[in-house]
């Protein structure tokens, strides 16, 4: 569908694996959380899940410390973050503002470098990519969906979607072919000749998704994709992302919204620069899953942790 290559991975049935892991996790984690997330057991646990086979995306012991040039004061944005993602997964990273989730996304997106640790995507350490190769890497391996869409006013909708392919010097024929396939799925075929300022928020975000997908990226990174949308548009968009995921596209979303997160297959919770908990959706309805997420948020991020 979206990616021929990803059909192979479908055989692995990530949902089933997820369920198994989930059981183990939930059990261990509750204890873990009570003793605070720095517990070495937790780190070990993450390592265990990784051990068996090489994962699609591995994040190892990421640390990011911000230090302003003229002051000695340091801000720790990420303490020690490790997790891994399988191909075809749909992961939401949840946290409140200031939890480090945006820093994490920026590092995954190669827009920022970690102080230490590594991010390995398809056995390539993206933190080691040279500065002058980064743009090309982003263009060919990653797709981005931003909360404020980031469409260029100077370009028509069609050209906005073509943008990453044009930068990659793709042939016009190929670009048009891909768009012809993509546009009906995202319901934007009628919008292609308009200018971005003529579109509604929901339409803009669908265009942004088209721009993210047209390069056939290995990983789509979404940063609060529903933040600027109303409820109905958010719902539609989340359903759309789910559909896209079902075709085999790996998606990693950062959000503070339980509703948004409830559409993912797995939710990682981040606070004070640590990942300290995760939940699997398994086969549950989004609504049910959302309740659990909300509860976890209240319990874990709220009073108990403190």
């Amino acid at each position, binding site marked *: 569908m979206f990616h021929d290559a990803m059909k192979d991975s479908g055989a692995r049935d990530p949902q089933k694996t997820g369920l198994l892991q989930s059981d183990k996790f939930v059990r261990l984690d509750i204890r873990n959380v009570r003793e605070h997330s720095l517990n070495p057991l937790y780190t070990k646990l993450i390592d265990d899940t990784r051990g068996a086979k090489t994962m699609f995306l591995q994040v190892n012991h990421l640390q990011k410390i911000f230090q302003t040039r003229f002051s000695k004061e340091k801000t720790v944005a990420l303490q020690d973050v490790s997790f891994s993602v399988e191909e075809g997964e749909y992961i939401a990273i949840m946290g409140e503002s200031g939890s480090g989730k945006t820093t994490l996304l920026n590092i995954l997106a190669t827009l920022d470098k970690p102080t230490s640790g590594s991010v390995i995507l398809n056995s390539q350490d993206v933190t080691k990519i040279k500065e002058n190769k*980064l743009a090309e890497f982003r263009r060919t391996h990653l797709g981005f969906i931003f909360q404020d869409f*980031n469409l260029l006013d*100077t370009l028509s909708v069609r*050209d906005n979607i*073509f943008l990453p392919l044009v930068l990659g010097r793709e042939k*016009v024929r190929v670009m048009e072919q891909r768009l012809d396939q993509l546009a009906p799925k995202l319901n934007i075929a009628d919008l292609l000749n308009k*200018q971005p*300022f003529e579109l509604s928020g929901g339409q803009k975000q669908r265009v942004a998704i088209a721009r993210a997908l047209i390069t056939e990226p290995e990983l789509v990174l979404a940063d609060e994709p529903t933040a600027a949308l109303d409820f109905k548009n958010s719902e539609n968009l989340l359903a759309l992302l789910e559909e896209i995921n079902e075709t085999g596209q790996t998606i990693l979303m950062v959000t503070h919204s339980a509703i948004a997160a409830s559409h993912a297959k797995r939710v990682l919770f981040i606070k004070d620069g640590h990942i300290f908990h995760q939940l699997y959706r398994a086969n549950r309805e989004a609504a049910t899953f959302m309740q659990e997420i909300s509860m976890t948020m209240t319990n874990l991020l709220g009073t108990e942790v403190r």
Partner: protein
Amino acid sequence: MFYIKLASRNIRQSMSNFLPFCLSSVVMFIMNLIITTILFSPSLKKLQGGSSFAVLLGLGLIVLTIFATIFMIYSYRFLLKRRTKEFGLYNILGLKKRHIVRISILELFMMFLATVIAGTVLGIILAKFFYLIFIHLLGENYFDLQWSPLAVMIVTVIFACIYLLLMIISSFSIRRQSSLELLKNASKGEKEPKSRGILALLGIVSLAIGYYLAVTVTSPLDALTKFFIAVLFVILGTLLFYLSFTIWLLKRQKKNKDYYYQPKHFIIVSSLLYRMKQNAVGLANITILVTMTFVTLATTVGLYSSINGFLDDYFVRNTIINVNTTQQQSNAFIDQVAEKNGIPLKHKIVYEMSNSIIGAMSHGKFENKQKLSSLTAVNFMTADTYKQLTGKSVHLKDNEAIVFPAVGSFNESSVQFGHHTFNIKDKINGIRNFPSISLTASNWLILIVNSKSQIQPVLDAASKASGRQYALGFETTISADVTAKDAKKLNLVLSDYLVDGNKPIQRIDEGKMISGTAPSLRSYDEMHQQFLAFAGGFLFIGLVLGFTFILGTALIIYYKQISEGEQDKRSFEILQEVGLSGEEVRQTIRSQVLLMFFLPIAVAIVHFGFAFIMIQKLISLFGATRFSLLLLTSAGTIAVVAAIYYIIYKQTSRAYYRIVER
């Protein structure tokens, strides 16, 4: 009172929005003020040819006023767009539109006052500054740039009108929009401009007309009258060219998919197209200002630098004496006077010519009427005199003539004076020991004919037609090398005599009534001094204007960079996130900026190329017509201005990079 407070607080608080607008307003004011000051300066009246130059300056003032108006509207709309959100908020918080209009009018009024005060003070300081610099540069005081209240008044009135227009624009645009629209306006995108074929065609046509007028100028005086019309056409054409032709071109490039969908073209074409409507005004302004700089500087520098060449062409020897009678009588007279006063005349050259007849020459037909576009002075010379000057003997039939077009050109096969027609046997490019230039502004034609008997009827007819008191006859020119002291003495002695045709030359005695004209004497040194004073004055004006124009250009460019930098900042951020590398971003910015900068200068050079012929004629109005020298000085001027322009470009684009890359 409340509104005044609100308005003044607005200006103070969003200085970053108001400052560029104020800056452009003040600079435009100064530019106008300096031209007006020169126009009303007493030194201008003393300059030879000053009155024609005053006409040019007046035209320049009109052009610049049109310009200031366009540019002020352009920058005010930019300001207004940024402020509509603020106005919308006022509206929603409970101020009526009427009140908002009142606030914006008060704001404009305050800026107008600030412009007049700052512009006048800075203008006077700048004028003094120019004055000191150029006196230092030229070594002598050729022009006194005096501050005049009248000039300030005129410019103030002009700007009052412009500000009134801005007030009207602002109240219209505020009243027209609903409060919600006002709120959203700042973030509103723009639709891609439509390409309008008719406008593009109109632009090309008016450019063509302007160019055609410039190229087909036939005489110096013709140039003066056509100059303004040509300038207006070219300005209109330039504006339309940028407005429509560039859009048409960009659209065409966009349609060509294989060209358009390449990283570099993609970003440049789309962003140029997006902004072309705003860009057009700015680019047209820059182009016209740069062209004006070229024209002013090239004309005045050309004039200044051609003085020596001109004098060399005119003065066959360092002193020239004109006596209005036959060669025989003149020569004997001058020899006698010189000998009596003990003045040696070295390397003497004597020749005889008819008095000039001045009229309109078209297609080889001479008419005794004053028509500026084809005004020509004709002098006849006999074959004998020609032989005496050059040593070459020519054999001419009674109806034949050899033509020497000293100023202007002549390509006909015959020349007709009333009933008398001469067939042109030959055309020559110069006569030895004879000036190749005239002191009058018109074209100059010398006809060599067989004998005086053929000329006299023509002269008589011309004399009758012009209703002169004196009959036209022959005059004699005696050139010789004389020391400066002797030349002065000789001039004094000669002024005591009067020459009246073929009657004997008489000395003026008290109580005796005689008529006639005194022999005239011109010396190289004296003329040189005179020319320097006059050309130096023009050079000063030219440098002041050129400098002012460059200042204006720099300002517009800077303004464009700053305002566009703010807009482009976000675009380049997005492009980088989507996968354009930092190096590619820099490359794109560079070529985009480069195009925006060198497009105006390229167009200005084309404009100047067409203006060149006109400039040449205009300069010859003041007496000098050396083509190659003018070409050289023009090229030099363009090179210098281009270099200054490049420095401005470097500096302002740095400001742009700073904003975009931050």
